[in-house]
């Protein structure tokens, strides 16, 4: 089943929700999903008789770094509209078809439902996205840092584009 057909099924099933088909990219096309519908959509994709996306191949956080300059009333320039994204790469072992989802979250409040209850393997992937980007996955059973030490500085997320390496960690100098 092609992504376009899957999208049609989704549109019929969730008439109130918005789905954007993003295929300007040359290799892979994405369906952008509204964050609040994500969990329902994922359950539907997994359980629907002729879709059966039983594996989550990959889940990755991305810092889109797409802030634009906006002038407020007093004429001061400030950056707004920066988003963090989460990409979900789904695959069905039974039918051997793929489907790629994306949600975009504002950087001020990067919160999205966890899909750990749908696919078990999302657990560590989501912890990694939290660790590296600070994306909060709601209702995740154990959302703590995974790769970095547990006492790493709060609010310091290394894969964000504006990350700066701290000078010291526990008395050890970090820069060369």
């Amino acid at each position, binding site marked *: 089943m092609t992504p376009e057909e899957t999208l049609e099924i989704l549109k019929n099933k969730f008439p109130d929700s918005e789905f954007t088909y993003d295929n300007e990219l040359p290799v892979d096309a994405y369906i952008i999903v509204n964050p609040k519908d994500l969990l329902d959509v994922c359950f539907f994709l997994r359980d629907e008789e002729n879709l059966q996306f039983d*594996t989550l*191949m990959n889940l990755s956080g991305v810092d889109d770094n797409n802030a634009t300059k906006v002038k407020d009333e007093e004429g001061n320039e400030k950056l707004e509209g920066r988003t963090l994204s989460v990409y979900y790469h789904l695959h069905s072992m039974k039918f051997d078809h793929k489907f790629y989802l994306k949600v975009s979250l504002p950087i001020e409040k990067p919160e999205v439902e966890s899909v750990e209850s749908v696919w078990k393997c999302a657990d560590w992937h989501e912890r990694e996205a939290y660790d590296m980007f600070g994306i909060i996955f709601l209702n995740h059973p154990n959302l703590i840092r995974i790769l970095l030490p547990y006492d790493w500085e709060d609010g310091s997320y290394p894969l964000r584009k504006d990350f700066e390496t701290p000078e010291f960690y526990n008395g050890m100098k970090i820069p060369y």
Partner: protein
Amino acid sequence: MPIKTEEMVLNMGPQHPSTHGVLRLELKLEGELILDVKPHIGYLHRCFEKHCEAMTYPQVVPYTDRMDYLASMSNNFGYAVAVERLMGIQVNERVEYIRVIMAELQRIASHMVALGTYGVDIGAFTPFLFLFADRERILTLFEETCGARLLYNYMWVGGLSHDIHPDFVRKTKDFVQYFRPKIDELNNLLSYNKIFVERTANIGILPADVAINYGITGPILRASGVKWDLRKNDPYSIYDRFDFDIPVGEGLKGTVGDCWDRYYVRVLEMVESLKIIEQAIDNIPEGDVQEAVPKRVKPPKGSIYARFENPKGELGYFIISDGSVNPFRVKVRAPSFVNMEVFGELCKGHFVADVISILGSMDVVLGEIDR
């Protein structure tokens, strides 16, 4: 008189001879019985993804070497193919054939380490020495080709760093001839050894549906009886031209999906890799291995998720390009990272000594888990 027991937390690692690197396990025990296992990872987090964003596309290749350092060729292979797909580069036949031969040799070398160290974990030291002596032969083949023993930087975007040398074909054939009887020797020495079977059969059984839900791939999934191999199911490069089988676990000594099956699937995979090498080695066409190497690697704006069958499982590269010479984002779906998640589930209800059996049978590489 009833014996009073209480729950105990036992820390295992990061320095422990059987954790295959710097893995820390927090075992919750009741006597010898395991109630829960929490793996703590990140002791080898080397910031791979941050480095990708700072490097140009060809400069990332040496860093991919250092993820799964037992299978550097396969990592190079995946990255090169992913970027080539993003740029629409078609490499010539000679490159494809050499790449497949190298990747399969690497698969054998990686499985040798997996099986050898598994033997050491269980208490059999001799197979380790035998397998490492044979592994040196493969490393010598690699070294003669590209000058490195472990981390090769061999497969570039669009080609290879060096052509094979004139003697390579003969030496590889010699190796295949030499190694085939060695597998029977390994079987007699370790696989069917009573002590080894007692320690591994019926231990850590992973049912197929749990494996799929956890996203398990590679030999572990196949040992659970699922015939799934990306070389057949989602062929990349020229794998669709070769005739080989996908070995699956059959529960010969115990139950399907136990530690022994996971071990034995790797042994059978080495035989299949020898088959592929044999078919490919005589058909290497002439050509220039750097014909398609671009002067400047600058993919168009876009993204790709490409996946490959590594010795450990499905290796996925998710690359986003913003049209510049540096990747905007590279996320690696490392097979060991995902496979490790099911570990706690497998250990529950077993004894402490079985943790070693189960961990060894998963064949995880910490460089890849932590990246």
